């Protein structure tokens, strides 16, 4: 019994330690951000590999999620003869929840793992130690541009995901199922609020972008410099990012809506 309690206590301590270390790392990244902004080229190179390379995945997932929403929403609303509310259903679920959350989880899987393994491998092959020898701060040169690229890319990816998802819902609802096009859009224009729904979704995407990218670069930077250590760090990135995003989503929803 005592052993179990002690185990649980150690898990709590480990969690707190990781949270604290993440917080310190974030402060360090933010302090170095102004210097990194002086060299935007490094950031944009990373925007390519973090954001632009995720584009196809995000667009295809967004299209399918929008189409599924349209189909499921149509079938359910049809029971109450309320299919004209389909547009509101699709747009609200995408803007408020599905867009930011699904994009963040996909982003962690597509771009976060790449960041972790890249930085982890740099550590394992002693490139980071080499930079320190040359008096180049590896955090400033390697980590901060990647972090900023992730933070810039996430809201843009979410916006693209939302736009494509709405298009998918529209295609299924209006073109396939025959919901009236005017009812679809007029319901959307009447119900979806610019500040409450759209901007709070954008805010969510920014927060998730910070969280997912921070976890990815943190795990990479502090990975054990072995093959096994890098692979473990990559796994932890996906698991921790998904959990962090879902937990943050609950908190943000509770505050905002």
């Amino acid at each position, binding site marked *: 019994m005592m052993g179990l309690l002690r185990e649980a206590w150690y898990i709590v301590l480990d969690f707190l330690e990781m949270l604290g270390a993440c917080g310190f790392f974030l402060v360090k990244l933010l302090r170095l951000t102004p210097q990194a902004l002086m060299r935007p080229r490094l950031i944009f190179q990373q925007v390519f590999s973090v954001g*632009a390379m995720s584009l196809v995945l995000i667009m295809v997932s967004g299209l399918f999620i929008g189409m599924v929403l349209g189909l499921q929403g149509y079938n359910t609303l049809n029971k109450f003869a309320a299919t004209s509310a389909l547009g509101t259903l699709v*747009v609200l679920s995408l803007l408020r929840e599905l867009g930011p959350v699904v994009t963040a989880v996909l982003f962690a899987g597509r771009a976060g793992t790449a960041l972790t393994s890249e930085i982890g491998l740099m550590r394992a092959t002693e490139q980071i130690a080499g930079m320190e020898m040359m008096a180049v701060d590896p955090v400033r040169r390697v980590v901060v541009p990647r972090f900023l690229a992730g933070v810039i890319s996430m809201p*843009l*990816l979410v*916006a693209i995901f939302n*736009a494509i998802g709405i298009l998918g819902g529209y295609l299924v609802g209006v073109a396939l199922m025959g919901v009236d096009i005017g009812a679809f859009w007029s319901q959307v*224009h009447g119900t979806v*609020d*610019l500040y409450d729904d759209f901007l709070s979704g954008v805010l969510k995407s920014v927060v998730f972008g910070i969280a997912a990218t921070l976890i990815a670069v943190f795990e990479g930077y502090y990975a054990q410099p072995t093959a096994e250590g890098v692979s473990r760090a990559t796994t932890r990135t996906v698991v921790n990012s998904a959990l962090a995003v879902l937990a943050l989503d609950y908190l943000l929803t509770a505050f905002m809506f």
Partner: protein
Amino acid sequence: MKQTRTIEIVTGFFIILGFVALYIVATRATNIRAYGESSGYSVTASFANIGGLKVRAPVTMSGVTVGRVTEIRLDPQSFNAIVTLEINGTYRGIPDDTTASILTAGLLGEQYIGLSPGGSETFLKQGSRITYTQSALVLENLIGKFLSSGKGS
């Protein structure tokens, strides 16, 4: 050299696509138009009961949206609800004995304000007050009345 150029083009394309998507979603899939109509004039109306009327509900005349509800508050003396309506600037010639009633779109829909024009020669202007108002129909009261009248007869 060729390769970095391709990378730059794709990155630029990605960033532009992201902002275009933001813009399209914000303008096409939200009520952004309800925030744009500001060059009008506002009038007030007091109601004994506004039911479920909300800020930014439409104000209509013969079914055409002519404005929005911008503020709802309670008058501490009379305990009536004071509703401020922002009327679009293109509709200047609304008679000042117009009646404002709170109506419901459909049986369970959103509530909105319907204006039915009177015959006065003077028009509503900034700050004027609509005197003839009709409160919201509260379904529970209606049912209550119906039940009690049924018992009496």
